[in-house]
C-alpha cells in the first residue's frame, strides 16, 4: 500500500459492563477517520484485551467502562501491557469516570481519559497526534 500505514486501534470493553453505544460510535468515527479498528465485543478480561492487542499488533488500545469498575480494570490492563512489553502502545479510556479518579489512572499509565460529551473529533485528533507512526 502506498503512503502512510494506517493507525490500528483495539476498541475494548473490559469487565461486565454492557453499555456499548459509546464504544461503537467511536469505532465508526475512527474508521471514518481512516483508522483500522478491531472491536473486542463485551465482557473482556484484561488478559484477553492485552492478548488481542498483541495478536492484532495495534498502535492504540481504547477502553470504555461505564460501570465504575475502571478503578480496577484500567490499571490491571496497564500492568499487563507493561509485562508483555507493549511499551509503545497508546492506552486511552472513556466512560463514566469521576474526575477525582483520573490522576490515579494516569499514574497507572493510561494516557488520557475522555468523559461523557467528548467529541469523537477530539479523540481522533488525540490519537493521530500520539499513536506510534
Amino acid at each position: 500500500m502506498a503512503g502512510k500505514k494506517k493507525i490500528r486501534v483495539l476498541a475494548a470493553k473490559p469487565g461486565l459492563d454492557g453499555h456499548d453505544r459509546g464504544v461503537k460510535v467511536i469505532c465508526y468515527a475512527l474508521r471514518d477517520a481512516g483508522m483500522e479498528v478491531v472491536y473486542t465485543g463485551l465482557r473482556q478480561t484484561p488478559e484477553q484485551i492485552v492478548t488481542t492487542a498483541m495478536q492484532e499488533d495495534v498502535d492504540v488500545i481504547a477502553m470504555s467502562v461505564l460501570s465504575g469498575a475502571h478503578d480496577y480494570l484500567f490499571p490491571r490492563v496497564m500492568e499487563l501491557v507493561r509485562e508483555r512489553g507493549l511499551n509503545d502502545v497508546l492506552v486511552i479510556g472513556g466512560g463514566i469516570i469521576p474526575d477525582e479518579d483520573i490522576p490515579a489512572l494516569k499514574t497507572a499509565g493510561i494516557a488520557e481519559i475522555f468523559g461523557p460529551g467528548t467529541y469523537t473529533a477530539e479523540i481522533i485528533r488525540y490519537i493521530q497526534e500520539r499513536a506510534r507512526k
Partner: protein
Amino acid sequence: MYDPTKIAALRERQEKWNQKAEAKLAKAPERKKGFTTISGIPVARLYTPGDLPGSDYEADLGFPGEYPYTRGVQPTMYRGRFWTMRQYAGFATAEESNRRYKYLLDQGQTGLSVAFDLPTQIGYDSDHPLSQGEVGKVGVAIDSLADMETLFDGIPLDKVSTSMTINAPAAVLLAMYIGVAEKQGVPSEALNGTIQNDILKEYSSRGTYIFPPQPSLRIITNIFEFCSRHVPKWNTISISGYHIREAGSTAVQEVAFTLANGIAYVEAAQKAGLGVDVIGPRLSFFFNAHLDFLEEVAKYRAARRLWARIMKERFGAQDPRSLMVRFHTQTAGCSLTAQQPKNNIVRVAFQALSAVLGGTQSLHTNSMDEALALPSQEAVQIALRTQQLIAYETGVTETVDPLAGSYYIEHLTNTIEAQAAEYIRKIDELGGAAAAIEKGFIQREIQESAYRYQKAVEEGERVVVGLNKFQVQEPKPTGLLRVDPVVREQQMRQLAELKGRRDNGAVAASLSALGQAARGEENLLPLILQAVRVYATLGEICDTLRDVFGEYTAVSTL
C-alpha cells in the same frame, strides 16, 4: 372524522398558505432548511385536519380504557390514581440499599425498584474472578437468599410492589423474593411487582445475557407458567424499549423493536402451551422518555394502539387486559450532560411530563448527577419531587389524554405507528426478533442511529445546551457517591461463612435435581425455589444451568 370534501378544500387552502409562507422565506428565512424530530421524522410548518386523511375517531382513538387504547388503558387515568413513583435504586450492600429503600418509602415513594450489580445480573457470585472491580458498583450485590433477607428487612412484602431489574437470572431472584416472603409469612399469591425478564433486548442493547436464546426463552416461559399459578399478581416480564433507546435507537425503532420482542415472547408462550389470554394480561412494558417532547407523547400513544392491534388481529386475544400496554417509563439517561449538571433537572422535568401526558403507569425520574456517578441523596430527592410537582401542581393530570386531537400529535402518532409496523414486517421476514438479533439486524440499525445522532451533535446540527452551545467554564463536581472497594471483600467473607453454615448436602442435592430437570422439559421454577431455600448461591444455580444450556456468544456487528 372529517368530511372528505371539506378536507380536500382545506388541503388546497393549506397548500396556498404554504406557498405564501414560502414566498416570504427569501426575506425572513426559517432557522433551518428542514425540520425533523430528534428521530428524523420530517416536521411540517403546520398541521391541520388535512394531515389526518381518513382519520376515524372511534377506530383510531376511541375512549380511554377501550380498544385500541390510544387514549390510555384506564377510563379515569390520573383522576383515579397517579402513576407509581418508582425510583430505581440499589447500591453496594444489601444493608445500605435497605436503608435507601426505607428512606424513599418515607419520602412518599410508592414502589420499590431494585438495581443489582453486574455480577448478580450475569449470574456470578461476588467471589468469581470476573466479579473483580464490579461488586456493588451499579447496584446491590446478591449472592444468596441471605442477602435478599437483609435487602428487604423490615419491609412487609405484602404491602409494597417491587420492581427488579433482572433478566438472565430473573427466575433465581424471583425465587429469592418468594423465599423472603415465606419467612415473613406472606404467601406468594399476595406478592406484587415486576421482574424485567426481557432477555431479547439484552442481546441487542443491554448486554447482561447468560444463556443462548432458546433456553433463555424456555426459562422465561417457565416463569410465565409458574407465576400464572402461584404468583398471579406478578408482572412476569417488562418488555423494554428503554435500553434500546439508550443504545441509540430512534423513537420508531424503540417502539418497533420492543413490540417485536413482545411478539416473540407471546409466540414462545404459545409454543409452550400457554394461551394468549393467559400470558397477555401479565405482560408489561418499559419505555424511555427522551428529549423530543411531542414525539415522545405520540410514541406512547402509538405503542399502545399498535400493540392492541397486534394482540387482537395477529394473536386473536379476547381478554381486554391482553390488549393493553401498561408501561413504566424512565427519563433518558443518555440525554443527561456532565456539563452544567443542574440543567439536567430541567431536562428530566420535560421528559417526565411527556411520559405523564403519554399515559404512563409508573415513572422513574433520573437524578441530575447521573452522567457523573451514582446519584446522591439530594439529587434523588429533587428527581422524586419533580414527579410530585407534575402530579400535584401542573394540572395536566385532571383530564385524560389532554393532547389528543392536536393535529401534530395525531399525525405523529400515525406516523410512528406506521413506521414501526413496517419494521415489524421486516423483522417477521427475517424470522422474528430472535433471528433478527442473531443476524445482527437490530444491533446494526441501533448503532447506525446512534452514530448519526452523534454526528448531528458534533456538526452542530443538533444543539445540546451546555455541551455544544452556551458552554461555561465550571469547577469540577464534588461530593459524588462512591462505592468502597472493600464491599467485595465483605461480600466474599459473608459468602464463605454461609457456605460453612448451610446444609451442603441439601445444596448439592437441589443443584443436581435442577441440572437434571434442565436436561428434560419440566418447569425449572420449583427446583430453583428449592435450591434457593437451602441457600444455594446465585452463582451455583446459574453454573448448574450453564453446564446444561451453554453460554451465549454475541454476534459481531462491527
